[in-house]
């Protein structure tokens, strides 16, 4: 057997799953002692170029409350044409179409390498993708121009049959009718009035005709009149391009000392209402582009007086943010409505100040939408990120899927506690649902309105087997993920992933269990729990909780293989300092933005977020990863730091001087030029694939932007211990934060001393 490393890697490649423990303790008691719960990071739509989807329906267990899908772990009686469900042990006959089944003629789902398999099913007529642009017009002229161009460009990226719609807003909200010729028509809503979905549909003239038309025409559920506001791209390409071209800045005058009136809340409400009325339960993206905070109407985040600044963490902690609760509640309600209908909401916020992401984050968090934050629409960060939303996979399909419903089935010894990720609960209670909730729990089904290949959910389980009822030797715990979704080609698909792990007795096989510990996965999973808590609790509480967990972990494993969790502890150290848990130096919007991405990216990206990667470039050798430590900051090095959100190229003091002197321009210093170029090339590579585009920062020793680097590295050298450490190397960091070393020492002390 390969090492756990290889096993883990293999599993991840095949199934998109990383478990914190790869051997499961066989009883609840033991599992609890392990501190880190049995949990996994699951990437439902992990790209599997090697996995051809099968074109038939999955075979389901006939037990009503089970409905597990036939999988390689099932026992099959080929002669009797019967298979036993490995979750409920129900014996099911194969359907007639499987008549020819035999040991040599097995369907794909029975082959071990198809532990993950994708079915294409025929469910209803295919519905086109829907993109509804919701555009803020209270922008600076340049920004608006850039945004308009991006939007026009995006039209060319859409499949011709995709439906597009346009809503613009400022002080008023305008729903543009795309079907008319001649005069450009739009329906206008007042930005200050909260309207119910029904009212909106009535006002848009969607109410009655919808029902009537549907009855008359029967078949085509999507009637022509519905196309008033949502039109196939190929039909309105020109129109819409012109329309976008003619978009004006919000014409209402903005008096001195005021913010423009921005009716984001109503605009979203109208967008959601429109889709609700026309295409319920169909994959759709509402793409919201905002250049500032909502300043009026429901969902308002800040008043229009410039003298009242937008809320900061300070205000929030002092309970001084007037609109926070109301706005949050408003957007939450809307997010839930939208999620119910399977529509996801993206937020593209480009402004120098905050835009109210804190309040609006749930829109994307609950519906699987993207949040992109930038300084201006007129930056490549936004432009390329936006372009990347429409990126395509090897098949030429969009890397996005809609209306996903993920169901988890577990074998009896295991129950599911919850999920953390861009999903909402579908409240499907079942036998495999634990009462102990972690993340979004209390259900075995979650809705993920929008998925992409990197969307990753953290799933938390609980071992419910009692200590006195040992699992039979060689028994395996099984988890099955059934994800139904609408593929970007409009097909309905179901992806089934079935995973099994061995049970182990924690008493006798503790070493085995410990060795199956996946530090990286565990770190990310714990971090997600922490972030999830941070959303609802005060920062210090979360930190204290995290610390207690760590102390317990250290204590439990101190005796045996503590070293194996050293990496884990290091992650935890950086997590404690990360913007996911620390709000210092971050605006509420930024915190929301970071957390949003943290809970949806896959393991690798998550790790980068927690502990940025630092590469060092020098004349001394090839580029090498170095410790994220202040000691790595040397004068003759160029550092490339990737924090996921930022790419920082840092030129050491000497390098910076050389560069200033212009050596790279001289032929004889060609090597210096190459040295300078090397990190740029690497950064470019990262930029190419990352979504959202990271902020690209080119700085040098003493540069103001160097703070991005300095705030991340382990402050092993500070102004406090500078001389104690001698003139070794590296640069001192001006901080009172403890270094990793101090943290570890302290942790050990606590683990040993305390009786906790």
């Amino acid at each position, binding site marked *: 057997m390969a090492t756990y490393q290889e096993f883990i890697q293999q599993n991840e490649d095949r199934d998109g799953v990383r478990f914190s423990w790869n051997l499961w303790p066989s009883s609840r008691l033991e599992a609890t002692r392990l501190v880190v719960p049995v949990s996994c990071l699951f990437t439902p739509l992990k790209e599997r170029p090697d996995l051809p989807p099968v074109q038939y329906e999955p075979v389901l267990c006939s037990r009503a409350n089970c409905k597990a899908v036939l999988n390689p772990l099932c026992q099959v009686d080929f002669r009797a044409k019967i298979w036993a469900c490995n979750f409920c042990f129900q014996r099911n006959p194969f359907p007639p179409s499987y008549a020819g089944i035999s040991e040599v003629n097995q369907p794909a789902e029975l082959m071990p390498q198809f532990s993950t398999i994708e079915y294409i099913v025929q469910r209803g007529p295919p519905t086109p993708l829907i993109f509804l642009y919701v555009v803020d017009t209270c922008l600076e002229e340049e920004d608006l121009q850039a945004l308009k161009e991006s939007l026009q460009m995006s039209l060319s990226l859409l499949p011709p049959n995709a439906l597009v719609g346009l809503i613009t807003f400022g002080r*008023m909200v*305008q729903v543009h*009718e795309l079907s*008319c010729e*001649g*005069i*450009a*028509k*739009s*329906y*206008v*809503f*007042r930005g200050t*009035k909260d*309207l119910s979905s029904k*009212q909106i549909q*009535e*006002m*848009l*003239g969607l109410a009655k005709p919808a029902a009537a038309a549907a009855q008359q025409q029967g078949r085509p559920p999507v009637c022509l009149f519905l196309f008033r506001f949502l039109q196939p791209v190929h039909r309105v390409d020109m129109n819409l391009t012109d329309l976008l071209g*003619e978009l*004006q800045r919000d*014409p*209402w*005058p903005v008096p001195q000392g005021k913010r423009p009136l921005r009716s984001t809340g109503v605009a979203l409400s109208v967008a959601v209402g429109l889709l609700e009325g026309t295409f319920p339960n169909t994959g759709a993206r509402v793409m919201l582009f905002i250049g500032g905070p909502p300043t009026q109407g429901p969902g308002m985040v800040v008043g229009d007086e410039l003298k009242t600044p937008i809320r900061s963490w300070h205000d929030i902690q002092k309970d001084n943010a007037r609109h926070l609760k109301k706005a949050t509640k408003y957007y939450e309600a809307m997010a839930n409505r939208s999620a119910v209908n399977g529509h996801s909401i993206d937020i593209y916020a480009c402004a120098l100040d905050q835009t109210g992401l804190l309040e609006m984050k749930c829109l994307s968090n609950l519906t699987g939408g993207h949040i992109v934050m930038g300084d201006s629409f007129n930056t490549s960060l936004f432009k390329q990120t936006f372009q990347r939303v429409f990126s395509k996979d090897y098949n030429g399909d969009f890397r996005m899927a809609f209306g996903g419903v993920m169901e988890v089935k577990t074998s009896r010894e295991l129950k599911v506690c919850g999920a953390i990720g861009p999903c909402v609960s579908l409240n499907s209670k079942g036998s495999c649902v634990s009462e102990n909730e972690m993340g979004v729990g209390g259900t075995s089904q979650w809705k993920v309105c929008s998925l992409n290949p990197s969307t990753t959910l953290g799933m938390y389980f609980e071992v419910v087997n009692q200590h006195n009822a040992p699992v039979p030797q060689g028994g395996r715990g099984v988890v099955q993920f059934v994800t139904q979704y609408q593929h970007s080609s409009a097909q309905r698909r179901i992806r089934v992933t079935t995973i099994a792990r061995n049970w182990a007795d924690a008493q006798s096989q503790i070493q085995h269990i410990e060795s199956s510990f996946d530090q990286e996965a565990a770190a990310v999973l714990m971090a997600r729990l922490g972030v999830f808590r941070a959303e609802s609790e005060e920062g210090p509480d979360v930190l204290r909780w995290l610390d207690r967990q760590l102390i317990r972990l250290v204590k439990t494993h101190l005796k045996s293989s503590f070293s194996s969790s050293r990496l884990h502890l290091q992650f935890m150290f950086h997590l404690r300092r990360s913007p996911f848990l620390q709000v210092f130096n971050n605006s509420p919007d930024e915190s929301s933005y970071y957390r949003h991405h943290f809970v949806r990216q896959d393991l690798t990206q998550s790790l980068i977020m927690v502990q940025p990667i630092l590469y060092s470039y020098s004349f001394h050798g090839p580029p090498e990863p170095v410790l994220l430590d202040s000691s790595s900051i040397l004068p003759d090095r160029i550092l490339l730091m990737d924090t996921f959100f930022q790419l920082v190229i840092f030129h050491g003091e000497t390098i910076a001087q050389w560069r200033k002197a212009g050596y790279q321009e001289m032929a004889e210093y060609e090597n210096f030029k190459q040295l300078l170029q090397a990190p740029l090339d690497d950064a470019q590579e990262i930029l190419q694939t990352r979504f959202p585009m990271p902020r690209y920062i080119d700085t040098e020793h003493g540069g103001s932007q160097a703070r991005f680097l300095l705030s991340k590295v382990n402050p092993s050298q500070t102004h406090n211990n500078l001389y104690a450490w001698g003139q070794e190397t590296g640069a001192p960091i001006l901080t009172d934060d403890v270094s990793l070393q101090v943290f570890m020492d302290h942790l050990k002390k606590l683990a040993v001393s305390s009786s906790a």
Partner: protein
Amino acid sequence: MNVNQHTPMASPYGQPQPGYGQPGYAPLDGGYPAPYAPYNGPASAYQPGAPQQGPARGPPASGAPPVSAPQPYNQYSQSQGDMQNGPPLMTQAPPRPAVSQPYNHGAVNLPGPQPSFPQHYGPPPSMQQVTNQMTGMQIASGPPTPAGPGYAPPHSSQPPVSNAYSAAPPPSYTHAPPPVSSAPTQPPPPSGPAPSQQYYGGPPPPSQQQFNSSLPPTSQQQFTSPAPPPSSQQSFPPTSYSGPVPPPSQAPAPQVSQPQQPFPPTQPPFSSAPPPVSQPAFVSGPPPPAQGSFPPRAPPPSSQPGSFPPPGPPPTSLPSGQYTGPMPPQQQPPPTQPSPYHSGPPPPGSQMPPTSMAQSNHLPPGPQGPPGPPGPLQQHPPQPGMPGGFPPQQNGAFGQVRGPQPGYAGPYPGQPNYGAPAPAPAPAPPAQKRLDPDAIPSPIQVIEDDKAKSTEPFTTGVRGQAPPLVTTNFQVKDQGNASPRFVRCTAYNMPCTADMAKQSQVPLAAVIKPLATLPQDESPPYLVDHGEGGPIRCNRCKAYMCPYMQFIEGGRRFQCGFCSCVTEVPPHYFQHLDHTGKRVDCYDRPELSLGSYEFLATVDYCKNNKLPQPPAFIFLIDVSYNAVKSGMVNIVCQELKTLLDYLPRENPEMDSMVRVGFVTYNKVLHFYNVKASLAQPQMLVVSDVSDMFVPLLDGFLVNVNESRLVIESLLDQIPEMFADTRETETVFGPVIQAGLEALKAADCAGKLFVFHTSLPIAEAPGKLKNREDKKLIGTDKEKSLFQPQVGFYNTLAKECVAQGCCVDLFLFPNQYVDVATLGVVPVSTGGSVYKYTYFQAQTDKERFLNDLRRDVQKLVGFDAVMRVRTSTGIRATDFFGSFFMSNTTDVELAGLDCDKAITVEFKHDDKLSEETGALMQCAVLYTSCSGQRRLRVHNMAVNCCSQLADLYRNCETDTIINFFSKYAFRGILSNPTKAVRDTLVNQCAQILACYRKNCASPSSAGQLILPECMKLLPVYLNCVLKSDVLLPGADVSLDDRAYLRQLISCMDVAESHVFFYPRLLPLTKLESGSLPVAVRDSEERLSKGGVYILETGLHLFLWVGASVQQELLLNIFGTPSFSQIDPNMTSLPVLDNPFSERLREIIDSFRAQRSRYMKLMVVKQEDRTELIFRHFLVEDKSASGGASYVDFLCHMHKEIRQLLS
């Protein structure tokens, strides 16, 4: 006045003589002059006449003479006494005199002339003379006698009537018995009344009938037969009585009837009324007795109508009874009546004798006398009626009077209005027959007279001088008082005390048209700029600098003419005074020498202390199914393309500053972005009608020139876009809200043009339901139909006014749209409502477009506040028009255009002095169409008088009618229409009675005496009472009534005049340069062989007689055949002949005069459409039950007599 005076003065005597030849009598008449005497006089005069005619009369004559004699004296005395009238008249008289003279001539000609106006005049003269003399002025037609008769016949029938009525009496006989017996007691009346009413029809008929029926005929006949009478009548007619005239017509019959003829003649002279009465008297009474009897009766009645029951009461009751009685009798008895007459007369006579003394009353008595006999019967009935009316009072006064009242009902029965509904019809006809329409005051004559005398420009410098009539073309020279084009008053001599005002009941009001358009040859008000400090004003009352400010202390201070407060003259305004105390620069400064001028307002006079933005026009077009189908949308859009180049501007050289915006709507609203930078307009749909807002700012209101292409593109596309619409529901409230919000957003004032088709039933604020319920009409709940259905629009109107948002509403309904409610906002904001029922593109396009063009182009001010300040002693207490008032003094007008007039009523709050007169200053602060804030000031000074006669001599009936109509039309919001009508009649009766009592020379109570200036009051009032608003026909929709009601509320005097008394011109001969002389609005005046044009300010008809000459048809229509005339044509074919050219020119000039375009309707005689046309022949009985002029006059007379007794 003048006329009266004149008439009285010279002509009377002289004329009378001619007229009757009984000149001698004339003198008598002269005698009449005495107020009472007048009547008597007239009577006597008549009598004289009678005498002349017949021996029978002789007696009367003899009798009369005595009377007359005294009368003459009286007259003189009166006249003197009336001096007021007289004198003033004199002064003013000049013009009139002329007229009167004509009269005389006319009189002379009378017989022949009658038909023609001259005749009228002629007759009038005589009549007038008589009356004049007698009354001094009234129409008295005085010939009081005549009057008596005249009135009597119809109305009054009063005693006179009764007399005349002796005929009536006869009937009365039938009735009479009861009456008589009961007569004394009123009880009978009751019974009688009813009958009377029915009879009414009868009664009046009686009188009429008499004419018609043998009785009347008799009487009339008498008159008529007495052909002579006609002449006399004519003479009378002039005065006012139609009576005479009728007689002639009826004369034949009467003649037949008999000896009376002689009398008749006399009677006729008397005025129809008198005739009857007198006639009877004459007839029976030999007259003399009759007359004598009259008096007697009068006395009795007067003394104790009741007590005297027999005689007196009868009389009194008679009057009424007569009406009633007569009527009934007439109806039935008529024939018999004659006989009764004879017989009757005697009785009266007998009665008469008793009273003899009451010669003055004679007439009345006469009537009574006649009535007496018949009267009793009649009276009884009347009495009953009376009771209801004024029994007691009347009794007190004169039995006769009472009689009249009762009669009222009866007589006027024709006018259901009056109370005696049923009767009315019948009566009316009879009445008509009886009275010679030519003998009663003729509007045409008055108008023509006024034209004739108004050759000089009218200068406003003389205080208390009444301007020429609105129908007259004249030039005005502003010499310190506002031109009558801006301000017209009901009275130019205000009574000094509240008591006098109350006694006279003459409304003190001014009709102000602040932005009136002036003719080319008169310069618009000068613009005065007093610099940064703003206009100079009195410190206390804030009156603006005007010619009434008296500079003192060498010019350092000025004393306010309104409140007498002394204010420092600012240094920059200082100027030395000359030796007369006038500022040296007096004539250099408009505000010191003119009646009307404008100040440039400073920022202190602006909203929010900010100079206003230029106003905006917003066009809101209904695009529901009906609107599109009718073609309205298409027409509006097409027209707007060109119309936008004609937005109002002050400087014709410059582009208009007015910005425009466009909205279309059905259940939802569509705003349009027409910003110049756009290639295509953009439509913004707002469906949230429950909470209206404006979806855009920039690009909604644009400058026409900048956005021309986009706007044109929009206007091209709107009809296309909605061509296939199936939306039938509309909203209305949100539409106005939208416009209002847009103006608010743009922070400017402006005007909304709303083109709307249907009842707004879609779910939205201001949603309405159909509440047209014919069953409510005539009930106490009727008033609710004129009130807005929901309060929403009142609130909205208030908001509109606050923003300076004026709303003009164009309605294109196919059914009930609830104009009463939809019109609330336009009316409160100074806007207009236009209504095109069953709009069809083809036929109504022209009218609509012309209205629209005018409405868009006309000069208009925004966000206006009008304040009327007055000198101590009077106060502006009430305002009528299209505006909103949030307090009791400031009239707020979101918009004020050149066609809007505001009627202001004044009341005394102290004594006025004859020396200083009464001053008023009307200041209107407004934003001009170029966005300039201005103050327009109109000053008006009138005299004050301590003699009622002065008041009556210097008043203007047209203005009074304007006031009355507005007053009444507002009254129906809170009172049943019947009550409103009664109030009107009552007030008029009081006005005339007051005159009769206090100003006219003594004369027979049976004589109707009208002040010269008010002699048209009855006919015009009748027109008001018959209007669709107050007396709807079965086919008049509620919407139409509400529409008219609102329309009247802001009419000026000229418009209301022609509206109530349409202009009817014969077109047989057309001369360039002058219009043919109009004819009176009566079918009788139409000749089968003629073509007539009739205009009301709203409608324009071309009536073609059935046997019109081919040549005329060829000239006008280009076809020789009557049957080939297309009744649907709305414009005349353009033919190349002088006649056609001139006719079209006339039509065009008519249209140019009116604020609304009049669609031409060709009416062929005997065609169905003639019904509509006839509706406007206001002197005739109307299909809806309105009384004819003659009937009404009789009724009025009766009322007056009732008041006097």
